[in-house]
């Protein structure tokens, strides 16, 4: 009796917790609201199975509790029932899978007009690079990284000259403009994750990974590293600010191009050399 009741209460309690606990996802700030929809669909289908099975168990434990004068039913198999259950499950699973694959297809297909932004991860922080006026991100190579050229742009690549380098933890993106994050790391694995955007992808040294989204609401969001990357993992936080056009332009105007940064760094180096000579 107590056992049956407990299983019943656990089931009811879980449902109540689901609907009334304060813990739920943050308000979405990108076009990936349909990921939330697939989660909700999954909740409804799996929730129904959860409740049905546990109520059934609870009923069985209550109804068929041991009595000396009674014998269990002897029924090793029931082909019909087994095949019905199998088919019902297969249909349920297909209902979960199909919409999931549709959304995944959208997630991995980047729209052509997406604005490319490089997210640059290192132990333990973030930098960003915008393509500049030509809308093309210049090529990079890890061998080119030094104090003068912290992003490791290939000096010979003309496309890199006008790239805007954001040597700060904060990135601004324009509301309603699709953006493709090109994810690059110079050391270990990282993952560029903003809970409100829903998207996620690991950054792997040696390759450039990506995902895309369209910011849908103005706001100031925290960036977290979502792939364990060493002792400082938990402290690897950045910020993404979604702006309307006016604010965005203001911020963009403050960023300097690779060419200018290089010139400035070289001048500094020369100054330091001069100082040393003295």
């Amino acid at each position, binding site marked *: 009796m107590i056992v049956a009741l407990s299983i019943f209460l656990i089931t009811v309690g879980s449902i109540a917790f689901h609907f009334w606990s304060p813990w739920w996802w943050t308000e979405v700030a990108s076009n990936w609201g349909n990921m939330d929809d697939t989660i909700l669909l999954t909740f409804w289908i799996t929730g129904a199975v959860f409740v049905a099975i546990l109520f059934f168990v609870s009923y069985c434990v209550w109804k068929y509790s041991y009595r000396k004068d009674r014998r269990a039913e002897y029924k090793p198999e029931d082909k019909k029932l087994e095949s019905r259950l199998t088919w019902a499950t297969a249909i349920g699973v297909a209902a979960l899978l199909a919409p999931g694959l549709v959304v*995944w297809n959208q997630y991995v297909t980047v729209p052509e007009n997406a604005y490319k932004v490089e997210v640059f991860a290192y132990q333990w922080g973030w930098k960003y690079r915008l393509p500049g006026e030509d809308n093309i991100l210049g090529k990079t190579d890890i061998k080119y990284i030094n104090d003068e050229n912290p992003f490791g742009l290939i000096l010979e690549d003309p496309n890199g000259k006008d790239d805007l380098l954001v040597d700060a933890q904060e990135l601004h993106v324009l509301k309603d403009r699709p953006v493709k994050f090109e994810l690059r790391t110079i050391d270990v694995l990282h993952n560029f994750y903003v809970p409100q955007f829903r998207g996620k992808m690991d950054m792997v040294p040696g390759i450039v990974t990506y995902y895309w989204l369209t910011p849908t609401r103005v706001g100031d969001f925290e960036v977290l590293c979502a792939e364990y990357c060493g002792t400082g993992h938990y402290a690897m936080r950045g910020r993404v600010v979604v702006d309307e056009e006016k604010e965005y332009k203001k911020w963009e105007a403050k960023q300097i191009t690779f060419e200018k940064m290089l010139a400035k760094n070289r001048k500094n180096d020369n100054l330091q050399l001069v100082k040393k000579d003295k």
Partner: protein
Amino acid sequence: MSDEYEHKLEAKSDYAGDASSVSTPDIDAVPDAELPDQELYHSHSWWTTYVFSQDAKYIGIQYALTAIGTGLLGLVLSWLMRIQLAWPGLGWLEPSSYYQFVTMHGMIMVVYLLTALFLGGFGNLLIPLMCGARDMAFPYVNMLSYWAFVVAVVVLLASFFVPGGPTGAGWTLYPPQAITAGTPGYNGGIILMLISLILFVAGFTMGGLNYIITVLQLRARGMTLMRMPLTIWGIFTATVLAMFAFPALLVGCLMMTLDSLLGTSFFMPAMVSLGETLTHEGGSPILFQHLFWFFGHPEVYIVALPAFGIVSDLLSVHSRKTIFGYRMMVWAIVGIGALSFFVWAHHMYVSGMNPWFGFFFATTTLIIAVPTAIKVYNWILTLWRGNIVLSLPMLFSLGFIVTFLNGGLTGLFLGNVTVDVPLSDTYFVVAHFHMVMGIAPILVVFGAIYHWYPLVTGRMMNETLGKVHFWITFIGSYAIYFPMHYQGFVGVPRRYYEIYDSPYVDVSTLLLNKFITIAVLIVGAAQLLFLYNLFASARLGKKAEKNPWKANSLEWQTPQMPPEHGNWGKELPKVYRWPYDFSVPGAKEDYIPQTQPPSEIIGAKVEKT
């Protein structure tokens, strides 16, 4: 062999259908043994009996105790981590220690506790007894297997004492971080971890060959494959999986050891490490992830399949009812085992591998839900119209159904590639895998220990203590992991030493952390009750009668209980039926042991097995 045997079976069932016929010797016919009786090693001293034992029963107990001992360390580590998460202000742990404890906790629990306990522990104890063999096929190799495991554990624990401490790379040991500065234990602890895993795989292979060959070759006369208890099917299939999966881990470990010690670049691309450019070039970190998860996903089933098998037997015995859909259960075990090699990259949807793989692996992953669901249906249909004895093993089995169902369903979230994107690397994942491959199998372990304890010691464990242990463990762990899923929805990432006051994480989420930690401390402490019960009952427990649960399977039919060296006395048992003939109409008792010949139960309407 099988053809001739089928023929005799048919002859037998004709007789059984005709109850009026007088018993004839024919209906009890069982084919002759194909192999001569095994020659056993007989120990002569205390050392060869209890330490370097070649008797599978002792080896099983050695494996189990070593695994449980190591697991206790894993439990204590989880306490330390949870205290840090609940009260980050205390400054209780350094970030590096936190990550080291996370790593060691994970690896210990998955490999050194669960794998060793289910296969090394229950495998050794139950395979020979349930198959009707005198011992494993190769007792000496079996002994070596255990001692290789001991050395692996010692090497693992030694990493706590090397400079830099144990590795803090996370239990997945992903390179490059596993072997580059910036991760605790990147040059000492990680090497010991890799060596320990290599030793474990070597030792496990010795044991695993034994389990497979014993099941295939040394079954008693009449014990066809389709008469084997599901426990054996589970352990057998899991061992086959392990034989295919562990080599991937082994080469992964070897290659990473070379990358670290000799400067090769299997997994290491050109990279900068804390401002310094490394000499590696051209390696692929994702290759390691493929190798790791090609092992890692089957590993989930290496733990789960024995639990599936054992819980099937516990449910059947303690509800005095035939397991529902035995053949479907067997095929589900085999099918899940086979499919488990085609789903590994669902751990890698957001790893940076080619995103188009997502379609394939999401589909295979959701397909595996079908045989798994069938198993759940068959467990609950076994309860339906049963005669359910609420003994300790039954309580734990019910706990398993609740937690496994919960964890299995959340697997449908994570397996479905789109749903995984927002949830991966959050506490939703942590909650999911603890529920499905932590709590659920552990509840089966407890159920199994309460069930087979009398077989090992000849005494019963204390029922009251066991019930207290059950309720705290079951309700407590549900209270730990159920709410944890919702932290994942909020977006709390896993492997965070502390979450600070992130703008999207409100106070209540931090409060929930405290609640979970308190539950962890209570559940952990309740295991002391279990340990006390485990050791004290060996002396103080009520003497068990023979076959105390009135089970049918062979391990309870030995001439002595606990079984002696060689298990079966002079003659090996003969098997006439499957182990699930419970509550057969027309039979005198509500159970018919596998060794009971048809001539003794004339009138019982047994279905042919």
